[in-house]
């Protein structure tokens, strides 16, 4: 970096003052004392590094006005120009850094611009005066020291590197000191030691587990012993309680057993023997009574069934009698109904006879039944009736149609005649349609011909005189020839149409011929214009002749005397009159033609209708013949109509119905008579056989006989059924008698058997024995009750005698007291047992807790984690330590093997400045001092040097520093403030030469008040630039 110019807005004695541009390698500011050299140096330092925070004196307040500050224009190593502006303000002043394009930069960029040099470094190394050269102290700054002794190591800031690593290392563990709170390894270690202490407690778990296990075993034994004791006491207590419970039963048992042994015992006497005896005696009595009653009944029934049944023989005819009884009501009805039915039959016979007479002679019942009046026959008659009606109507209709056709035919003939008369009256037409059309075309063509003739003549009149040579006329000849040819064709066609029968075709051809001829003629004329005038004239002449020829033909055809436009107008009007007349005649002829066609159609209709009428008549005659034949086949009168036949059929039907009715009634009478006869045939033999009086002729007696027979039969049957029932009762009574006898015997046997059990045959004795047995049983029951109680309490093995002996004569109260004593012993044993159990449970819980506790596991895991952290920190610390050790090793080696570049450079400069009196300088390893080595090799501390030589040594060191700094960062300007005043001229000269060499890489600004110094710099550097500073007035 180099300074190009300065602008001081207000700084010390300077106000709005510009210095520069500084283009020379060395710029010398020469001025007397107080000229402002130191102020300029301070200005540069302030602008680059900021206003000092120290006393106001170092602020260089603007005495002569202007804003406190200014700017410096600097150029970096790349040639980029920056304006560094700073005015007084907080934090070193208000800074502005801009390049030539006006881009702003931050303070950090300015630091980079000055090679990250600190203000102190700049002041002590790059901008120095006589004071700084007096002693080494100004280079005591750590950074500068580091640069002197590590500069040239190939690194920027070895001391800083070492400091940083050392700081990081000490955060973990600081060598030589106690483990302090700020060292991370200490925190982890403390925590780890706490965990270890907690774990130590858990190490007692195992012995405690063993102790508890043994305790639990011991307690289990004690509890088992107590449990056994308790069981024994409980058993005794239970026995005592039982004794107390069954004491009375045991006493009572003894009494009852004594009573029982005193009573006689009938071992076979049955249980409830007396009650059973009474029951058996009662059964014996009942059986005897029942046997007697049944024997009486049997006797009575035997008596009854021994008598015969009345009317027994009647039973043989019971079926016939019941049949006659059933037919009795039918017989009654028949006898009662017969006379009325006979009367009805006779009346119906008379009706049939009357209806046959009404049908006419020859009708009897046989014919009546023979004639076919079925539905097909009736349909046939109805069809005949419809056919006759339809044919008759057809004949009438055809007749009407024929009369109407005759009238219309006559009317059509009349219309035809009237049309013919009107045609006659109109007369014949002068032209036909073709001739009219031809004339109309000819008149039109003639008009056009007249126009063209006029134009051709006008053309010929306008042509120049003949003799002018024109184009050849050969070209138009074919066109005119063609026109002429078409004109002739048109005329021919017109003639064909006019004379012959060419009709419309001829007219069209004629018009076409004329038209094409005219067109070709026009083309021929236009073509002719392009040819020579002479040729045109010839052509026009030919054209006129041709048109005249056409007009002549038209005149002939139209029959005109002369042909002009007036004649053509007249001819046209005549043609219109002829055309209208022709049109009128044409209309009349169409009417006549239509009337003739209508007349023909009417005649044809009349013929058709007449034929249809004849056909209808024939159909009607044929139908009549068929009908007559049908009547004859049925032996009916031929004159009878279809309606008559239908009437006849109706009467026949009625007569048939009456005949059928009459026959039915006759059959009914016959049936009634057969019934009476059949029933009489049944009853009469019975009555005769059984002696019932009857009169065959009187049907009423038959009825009475039936009633009599029926009554007798019922009586006989009733008596018979009674006898049968009595027989059954007898059988049953006999069986019952047998049963009762057996029961009676059984009761007797039971009684004997029962008495035998008591070894007696006397019922009274039996009853006495029974009473003794009841008493025995009662004692026995009581005894069993007591025994059951004892059994329930003591079980089946209980020894009653022993128990009774155990009780002795103790009262229930005495027994209760024994129970209470034993109860107390039991409770004491249980209490002790429960205490041991509780102790065992507590020990078990503790044992389980020891076995399942996670605390020890957690602590072990935590210890492992902390140990790992400790190792990790140790590893990290080791890395830093190794890094530091290796750095220091290398540094030592470097200092021993490689004198720092700073010292080397300084040494060389020092040797030159001293003119070889000193060999150079040396920096001993591990010491921050510089030693001058004389030519003879003597080493001198700085205190041993003269003032001038010492200044030269420090100047040399700064040379070395500047070189080193320039090599590793940037080349800052070197500002020297009267640094050589204490040097003799030769050494000053040598120093100036050294500065001139330095100026190759670093801009040099020299402040001096000594013209000889200026001169020496000028001699050392011919390009040096000199600024004369005027003395400033005293402020």
């Amino acid at each position, binding site marked *: 970096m180099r300074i190009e110019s300065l602008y001081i807005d207000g700084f010390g004695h300077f106000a709005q003052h510009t210095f520069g541009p500084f283009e020379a390698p060395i710029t010398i500011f020469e001025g007397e004392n107080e000229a402002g050299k130191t102020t300029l140096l301070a200005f540069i330092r302030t602008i680059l590094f900021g206003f000092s925070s120290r006393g106001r004196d170092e602020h260089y307040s603007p005495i002569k006005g202007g804003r406190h500050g200014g700017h410096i224009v600097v150029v970096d190593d790349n040639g980029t120009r920056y304006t560094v502006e700073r005015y007084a303000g907080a934090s070193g002043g208000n800074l502005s850094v801009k390049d030539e394009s006006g881009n702003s930069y931050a303070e950090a960029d300015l630091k980079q611009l000055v090679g990250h040099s600190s203000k102190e470094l700049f002041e002590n190394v790059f901008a120095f005066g006589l004071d700084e050269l007096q002693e080494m102290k100004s280079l005591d700054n750590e950074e500068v020291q580091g640069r002197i002794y590590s500069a040239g190591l190939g690194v920027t800031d070895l001391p800083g590197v070492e400091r940083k690593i050392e700081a990081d290392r000490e955060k973990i563990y600081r060598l030589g000191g106690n483990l302090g709170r700020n060292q991370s390894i200490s925190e982890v270690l403390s925590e780890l030691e706490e965990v270890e202490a907690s774990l130590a407690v858990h190490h007692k778990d195992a012995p405690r587990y063993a102790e508890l296990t043994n305790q639990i075993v011991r307690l289990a034994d004690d509890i088992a012993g107590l449990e056994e004791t308790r069981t024994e006491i409980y058993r005794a207590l239970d026995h005592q309680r039982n004794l107390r419970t069954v004491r009375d039963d045991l006493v009572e048992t003894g009494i009852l057993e004594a009573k029982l042994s005193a009573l006689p015992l009938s071992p076979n006497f049955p249980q409830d023997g007396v009650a059973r005896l009474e029951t058996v005696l009662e059964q014996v009595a009942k059986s005897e009574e029942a046997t007697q009653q049944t024997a009486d009944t049997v006797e009575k029934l035997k008596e009854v069934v021994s008598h015969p049944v009345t009317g027994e023989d009647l039973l043989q005819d019971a079926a016939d009698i019941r049949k006659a009884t059933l037919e009795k009501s039918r017989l009654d009805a028949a006898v009662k109904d017969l006379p009325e039915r006979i009367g009805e039959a006779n009346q119906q016979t008379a009706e049939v006879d009357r209806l046959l007479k009404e049908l006419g002679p020859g009708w009897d019942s046989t014919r009546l039944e023979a004639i076919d009046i079925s539905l097909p026959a009736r349909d046939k008659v109805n069809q005949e009736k419809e056919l006759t009606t339809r044919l008759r109507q057809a004949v009438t209709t055809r007749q009407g149609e024929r009369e109407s056709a005759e009238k219309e035919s006559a009317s059509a003939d009349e219309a035809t005649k009237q049309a013919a008369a009107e045609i006659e009256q109109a007369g014949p037409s002068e032209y036909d349609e073709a001739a009219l059309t031809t004339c109309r075309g000819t008149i039109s063509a003639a008009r056009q011909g007249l126009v063209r003739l006029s134009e051709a003549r006008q053309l010929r009149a306008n042509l120049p005189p003949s003799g002018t040579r024109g184009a050849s006329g050969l070209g138009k000849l074919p066109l005119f020839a063609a026109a002429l040819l078409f004109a002739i064709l048109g005329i021919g066609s017109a003639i064909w149409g006019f004379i012959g029968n060419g009709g419309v075709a001829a007219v069209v051809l004629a018009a076409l011929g004329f038209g094409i001829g005219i067109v070709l003629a026009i083309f021929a004329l236009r073509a002719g214009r392009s040819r020579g005038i002479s040729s045109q004239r010839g052509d026009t002449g030919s054209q006129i002749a041709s048109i005249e020829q056409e007009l002549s033909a038209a005149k002939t055809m139209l029959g005109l005397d002369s042909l002009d436009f007036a004649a053509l107008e007249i001819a046209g009007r005549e043609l219109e009159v002829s055309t209208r007349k022709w049109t009128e005649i044409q209309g009349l002829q169409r009417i006549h033609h239509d009337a003739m066609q209508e007349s023909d159609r009417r005649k044809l209709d009349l013929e058709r209708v007449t034929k249809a009428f004849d056909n209808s008549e024939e159909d009607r005659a044929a139908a009549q013949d068929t009908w007559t034949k049908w009547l004859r086949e049925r032996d009916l009168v031929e004159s009878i109509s279809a309606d008559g036949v239908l009437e006849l059929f109706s009467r026949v039907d009625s007569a048939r119905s009456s005949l059928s009715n009459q026959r039915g009634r006759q059959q009914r009478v016959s049936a009634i008579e057969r019934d009476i006869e059949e029933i009489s045939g049944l009853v009469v033999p019975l009555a005769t056989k059984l002696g019932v009086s009857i009169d065959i002729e009187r049907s009423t007696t038959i009825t009475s006989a039936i009633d009599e027979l029926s009554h007798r039969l019922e009586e006989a049957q009733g008596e018979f059924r009674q006898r049968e029932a009595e027989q059954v009762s007898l059988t049953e009574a006999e069986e019952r008698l047998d049963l009762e006898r057996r029961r009676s015997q059984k009761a007797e046997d039971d009684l004997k058997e029962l008495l035998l059990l008591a070894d007696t045959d006397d019922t009274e004795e039996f009853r006495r024995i029974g009473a003794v047995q009841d008493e025995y049983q009662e004692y026995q029951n009581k005894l069993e009750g007591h025994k059951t109680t004892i059994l329930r309490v003591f079980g089946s093995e209980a020894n009653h005698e022993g128990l009774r002996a155990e009780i002795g004569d103790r009262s229930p109260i005495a027994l209760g007291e024994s129970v209470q004593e034993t109860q107390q012993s039991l409770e004491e044993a249980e209490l002790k047992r429960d205490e041991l159990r509780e102790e065992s449970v507590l020990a078990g819980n503790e044992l389980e807790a020891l076995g399942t506790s996670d605390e020890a596991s957690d602590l072990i895991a935590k210890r492992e*984690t902390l140990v*790992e952290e*400790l*190792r990790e920190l140790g590893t990290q610390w080791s890395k830093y330590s190794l890094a530091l050790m*290796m750095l220091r090793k290398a540094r030592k080696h470097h200092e021993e093997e490689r004198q720092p570049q700073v010292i080397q450079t300084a040494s060389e400069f020092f040797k030159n400045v001293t003119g070889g009196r000193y060999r150079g300088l040396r920096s001993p390893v591990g010491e921050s001092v510089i030693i001058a080595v004389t030519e003879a090799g003597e080493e001198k501390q700085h205190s041993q040097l003269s003032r001038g030589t010492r200044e030269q040594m420090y100047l040399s060191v700064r040379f070395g520093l500047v070189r080193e700094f320039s090599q590793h960062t940037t080349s800052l300007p070197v500002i020297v403030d009267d640094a050589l005043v204490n040097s003799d001229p030769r050494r000053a000269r040598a120093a100036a030469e050294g500065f001139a060499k330095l100026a190759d890489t670093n801009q040099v600004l020299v402040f001096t008040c000594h013209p000889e110094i200026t001169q020496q710099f000028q001699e050392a550097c011919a390009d040096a630039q000199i600024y004369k500073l005027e003395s400033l007035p005293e402020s």
Partner: protein
Amino acid sequence: MPSYRFVHAADLHLDSPFKGLKRVSPRIAEVLRKSTFDAFDAVIDLCINEQVDALLVAGDVFDSADRSLGAQLRFVDGLKRLESSGIRSFVCHGNHDPLDAWHSQVSFPDDCCRFGPAVTSSELRLDDPDSPIVYGYSYPTREVRENVVPEFERIVQPGRIAIGLLHANVGADTGHESYAPCTVDDLGKVGIRYWALGHVHTRQEFSLPEGFAVYPGNTQGRHANETGARGVYLVTITENGSVERSFRAVDLVRWEHIDVDISDYEDMDAFEREIDHQLGLALERSDGRHLVYRVHFSGRGPLHGLVNHQEYAGELSKRLNDDWSERSPFAYCDRVTVSTRQDIDRDDLIKREDFVGDLLRFFDRSRDNDGDTEDLLDGLKPLYEHRRLRKYLSDYLPKGTELTTMLDEAESICLDLLVTEESDEN
């Protein structure tokens, strides 16, 4: 001969803490603390569900150093569950649970065959003349340094299928202490069809002339290096006497490592997406179990500065754990370690004749020559031999490879501070 089935487990280390784990939330701590017990419960469930003849436990049921009473009680509770299901148990003890470490009050089930300090035997299935015979040996004390396999050879009965139950270091596994050392050849000479081994925590099988020797590994990984599935072997001695075996995972918590090389990434978004992706894969591998994992960054690259920022590792751990550690099953990021290097050319730096070059050469010399490290260790001893710390740290004074790794880290610290990328370019 009928077929026989048994489960072979080893190194239960019941109630032993997870090693090398930093502080975790109480919920996760609880899961981790119970995990060895839960894994053992899963072994018992497996035995019952598979209706095996027996469970064989090849030592290190618990860590005697932890003096855990609960571990011993829970162990015998599990064996009693087996007994109630008619399943025998065979237990031998190893260096972590020698016979003298067991509390005398802890009573084993009656039908449990608990081997003593001399090799003895018992039938796998009682009252079965064809039953294979299980031979076993328990460490009387922790220090059993002699080969005990010849003792087996001495008593093995010919003509019956033999199973050996032993806690031993076979083939001088350097990852484990050399207790009851023996060789594979030693095992092959005995005529045992299946050696049910314990001691080595990683699953391992050796083929022998007559069968196999198998380390099932521990039942629950308890350290960052114990990654992957942990469990037991379900073994079948078939009718023809052949051995069929299948591994069954019983662990509750899986350990995983997520390693990301920063040299593959230019920006943090892609880099962190890769971390998430790797985590997703680790979750898939954990197969529905809880997951504890470590994230490690290595390599050189532009992200070196960012990932080495003093707060980055903590923030990443927090983000990952905020996302995953509260779920069930959880995925807990134990730590984020960084061994990345600045994106600078060390080979170039070491050629420089300046301080940095000197420094790197010193580092190389220290790494290459152990003799040079004495002064370094002297510099570290004040911490490791501190009177209050040495109890925990004296065994961890870095040596050998560990010291070399630390020197790498120290070099990285120096270079980060000494050499900026700009100066490197200069």
